[in-house]
């Protein structure tokens, strides 16, 4: 299963390397968000720091949706999804492969855009860098795993690009609330780390439950 999933993830990432469609769009979107927010808020003002956690997750959520939307729709051309369905692999391998590709892409977007955000907002971190990375990884993990599952579900709909955010936001709201709160505490008030840890635990539990659920239910979603 892992081998097939890695093959699918590699195929998706290599496709992206060739076409440069999705990742470029995601990075451009992230750059625009940062620019617009940097115009709106004065970096010299201390209250601007309070906006940064929100901006980080706006970038992750909306650029993530751009990638998720393409994830299964791209398999509709030439019915390549059928090619995966008739191959000797489980539906969960397809889900895992797609998840790995989407997760890698969102990590690249975060890696490129967040240093740019901190630079433009003249934000200096005083410790807690490891915790920030942890929140970003587990928050993105949950958002992308549920998003990949719902993208598979929405792909057969004619208005899938509209349907995906409608399905995704309510289901992922606990992850997003927890991630924004934990990011805020880590970036602005590291003394209250125990509160951040509570949010991190909530996100982790949510991640595990929904990842397993998606893994089990994907078989029914991909069924023709």
């Amino acid at each position: 299963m892992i081998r097939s999933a890695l093959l699918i993830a590699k195929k998706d990432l290599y496709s992206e390397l060739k076409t440069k469609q999705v990742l470029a769009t995601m990075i451009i979107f992230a750059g625009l968000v940062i620019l617009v927010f940097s115009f709106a808020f004065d970096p010299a003002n201390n209250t601007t720091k309070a906006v940064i956690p929100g901006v980080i997750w706006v970038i992750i959520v909306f650029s993530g949706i751009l990638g998720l939307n393409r994830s299964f729709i791209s398999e509709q051309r030439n019915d390549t999804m059928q090619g995966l369905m008739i191959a000797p692999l489980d539906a969960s391998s397809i889900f895992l492969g797609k998840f790995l590709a989407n997760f890698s892409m969102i990590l690249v977007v975060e890696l490129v855009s967040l240093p740019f955000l901190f630079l433009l907002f003249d934000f200096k971190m005083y410790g807690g860098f490891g915790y920030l990375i942890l929140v970003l990884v587990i928050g993105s993990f949950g958002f992308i795993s549920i998003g990949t599952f719902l993208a598979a579900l929405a792909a057969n709909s004619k208005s899938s690009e509209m349907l995906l955010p409608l399905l995704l936001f309510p289901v992922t709201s606990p992850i997003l609330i927890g991630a924004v709160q934990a990011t805020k505490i880590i970036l602005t008030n590291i003394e209250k780390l125990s509160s951040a840890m509570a949010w991190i635990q909530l996100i982790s539990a949510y991640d595990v439950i929904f990842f397993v659920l998606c893994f089990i239910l994907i078989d029914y979603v991909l069924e023709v």
Partner: protein
Amino acid sequence: MIELKKLVKQADNKLILRGIDLKIDKGETVAILGPNGAGKSTLLKVLATLIKPTSGLVKINGLELRKNQLEIKKLQGYLPHSSLLYEHYSPLENLVFFGNLYGIKNAQEKAIELVKEVGLSFFLNEPVKNFSRGMIQRIAIARAIIHEPPLLLLDEPHTGLDQGAISILNNVILSMKDKGTTTLMVTHDFKQAAEICDRIIIIKNGKVADDFRLEEKELDTVSEKYQLQVEGVS
């Protein structure tokens, strides 16, 4: 090789397959003929594990379809209307990807060999999106047989092909037959059916209307029997 008992497929209150009973032996090359909407492609999709039957028994190589999907998938090469190819990938990249998915060893060498066999060696590294319909179909054939399946399911494989591509496809089917491959081919092309198949099954309204063997390449027999069953002309 294939055993179907009372196979029924219903979709949206419409019966597409109405209790098909069929037995196909190993090594047979069988053409499935029938008018549009008769259920030919649905039958192929059920065998290819793409859609689940509503009821009935499907056995392939002694394995029951419901319980042994992964094993059955390994035995099959399926060529539908669409190419199932990634169009920004080259033939080599497409074939290596699918070869790896099927777990074949030396996927790269096998892919190069197949591209050569279908006469597209010069286009080995060109993206498939630049190819004509006939060229895409040739690569699609190579994709379907890359794991050397003992069962080949072809859905109107000759549609849109030029004479050169038709003869390459027929050669591939016949060489697979020599290796003992069972081929099930849905087609509207009686000439090709008579040319390469040794058994004809006519499906009408989701049921087997006729099932006969071809001793020689008797195109007239195929046409007559088809007209008799489907159009009611004797």
